[in-house]
């Protein structure tokens, strides 16, 4: 194994994985994290902690992830290139590992113009591909980006995102290949509403054999209303939402229940696509719904988390999937 990540262990054992997303509060309250974490306990294999998503200031992903470690959950610390240069990123990777965080998700980051500090200066010293490569070099070659030796390496399970619904469509899989070559161990995709387009993308992924080199977790968002879907279709860049889904939500007597049904059906359809190794649930501040979706999608119980201190034998994507 490359790390002590529970997610890596679950994937390597060939289980269909489930991760969930937790958005830290716009406050200093650890209690909010603890409360949201309760929904995920025993329900997912690892929990993503977003890094100031949509460029709105929230509790740091590293601190929130450390709180989850204390609760016995396996956090995936998201890290964007927007706010830190290579010095701060490497420093935070070391610190995160020292705090017991074993997964990192390397992201470009939403542009600051979306958030509540649109007059700030962005960094983008590195891009997400370069960030992946840097963390892999730290872990596997025990070197900093500078080439300097690193004595105790951060053994991170390295994740990246990909968006099959962004353009240029034909290039998305090339970019995925670059991320895999740079060192990504797992991928979490943008939320899937448009299954035909996702399937075409997966065909291209399989065409390059990438599904055998990286675990692909398909993103799923349970939605509460037709309005939320319409907002995503029209206002969120890089989303593809079929009109028929919006009409279905509009016609529903109980939109929340319909949203759960759609999420469950989507998960079942995604599970049938060869090369999909798991699901990444993004409840968008509706974390309470995660256990409901997981249960109804037949994804419970989850494989038991590893007892602390034990390390299983090594294995990789090709052996496990």
């Amino acid at each position, binding site marked *: 194994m490359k790390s002590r990540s529970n997610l890596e262990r679950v994937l390597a054992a060939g289980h269909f994985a489930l991760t969930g997303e937790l958005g830290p509060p716009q406050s200093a309250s650890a209690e909010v994290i603890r409360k949201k974490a309760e929904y995920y306990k025993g329900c997912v294999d690892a929990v993503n902690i977003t890094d100031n998503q949509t460029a709105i200031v929230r509790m740091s992903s590293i601190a929130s992830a450390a709180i989850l470690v204390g609760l016995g959950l396996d956090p995936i610390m998201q890290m964007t*290139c*927007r706010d830190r240069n*290579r010095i701060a990123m490497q420093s935070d990777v070391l610190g995160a590992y020292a705090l017991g965080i074993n997964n990192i998700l390397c992201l*470009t*980051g*939403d*542009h600051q*113009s*979306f958030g509540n500090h649109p007059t700030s200066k*962005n960094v*983008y*010293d*590195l*891009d*997400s*591909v*370069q960030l992946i*490569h*840097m963390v892999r070099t730290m872990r596997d070659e025990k070197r900093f*980006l500078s080439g300097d030796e690193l004595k105790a390496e951060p053994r991170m399970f390295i994740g990246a*995102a*990909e*968006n099959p*619904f*962004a*353009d*240029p469509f034909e*290039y998305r899989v*090339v*970019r995925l*290949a*670059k991320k895999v*070559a*740079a060192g990504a161990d797992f991928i979490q995709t*943008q939320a899937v509403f448009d299954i035909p387009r996702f399937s075409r993308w997966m065909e291209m992924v399989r065409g390059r054999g990438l599904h055998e080199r990286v675990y692909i977790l398909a993103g799923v968002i349970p939605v509460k209303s037709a309005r939320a879907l319409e907002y995503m279709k029209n206002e969120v*860049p*890089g989303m593809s939402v079929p009109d028929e889904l919006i009409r279905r939500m509009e016609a529903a007597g109980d939109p929340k229940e319909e949203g759960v049904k759609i999420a469950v059906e989507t998960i079942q359809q995604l599970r049938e696509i060869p090369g999909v190794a798991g699901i990444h649930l993004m409840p968008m501040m509706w974390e309470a719904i995660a256990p409901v979706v997981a249960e109804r999608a037949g994804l419970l119980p989850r494989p038991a988390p590893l007892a602390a201190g034990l390390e299983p034998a090594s294995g990789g994507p090709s052996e496990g999937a």
Partner: protein
Amino acid sequence: MIVAERKSLDEILAMLQGCSRVLVVGCGTCVTVCMAGGEKEVGVLASLLRLAAQREGRTVEIGEATIERQCEWEFVDELAPAIRRYDAVLSMGCGAGVQTIAQRFGGVRVLPALNTKFIGIPEKQGMWVEMCLGCGDCVLDRTGGICPIARCSKGLLNGPCGGSQGGKCEVSKDTDCAWQLIYDRLASLGRLDLLETEFAPKDWSKNRDGGPRKVLREEVML
């Protein structure tokens, strides 16, 4: 060219508070071409300043001068005979022009009338767009002649982020995604292979992150 845009009259008037003799200086190069600080714009701004003073019942003397280039000593020298008669010089040059005048004339108050925006081109009449950031380490050979540093909102080197849709940038539907442009151009050139390999982290020390930059060329020194 260097593209600039005039500050609002209110901002300029606030800067000039207490000045009764002001020399407005235009520049005959980039800012003339981008219609921000040439002879014509000097005339317009000088008139606006006189009108504003008139409305307030103040007497002012507004001088006008436009030199070939505010960023070269030999042209800036032309201002020497008259410049000390004024309380302030209002430069309609780019940031380099303002600073050249200030450096040449110690003790003279030099103020900027423009906001210097970028190195760019006129895309169409009345619209200028950014093309180059002066990063000091050109990558255009690998990106089909389209600069991702200047034209991608995030300056990404390894392809478009997840916010590229329909050829547009996530930041604004009025902005083309630079990586879509690069992809289309390389496809037309049959060079999509250039996008397969990782672009290593950029050496930003060649950018202004290395401190103010200098170009030294001994063979042309006197």
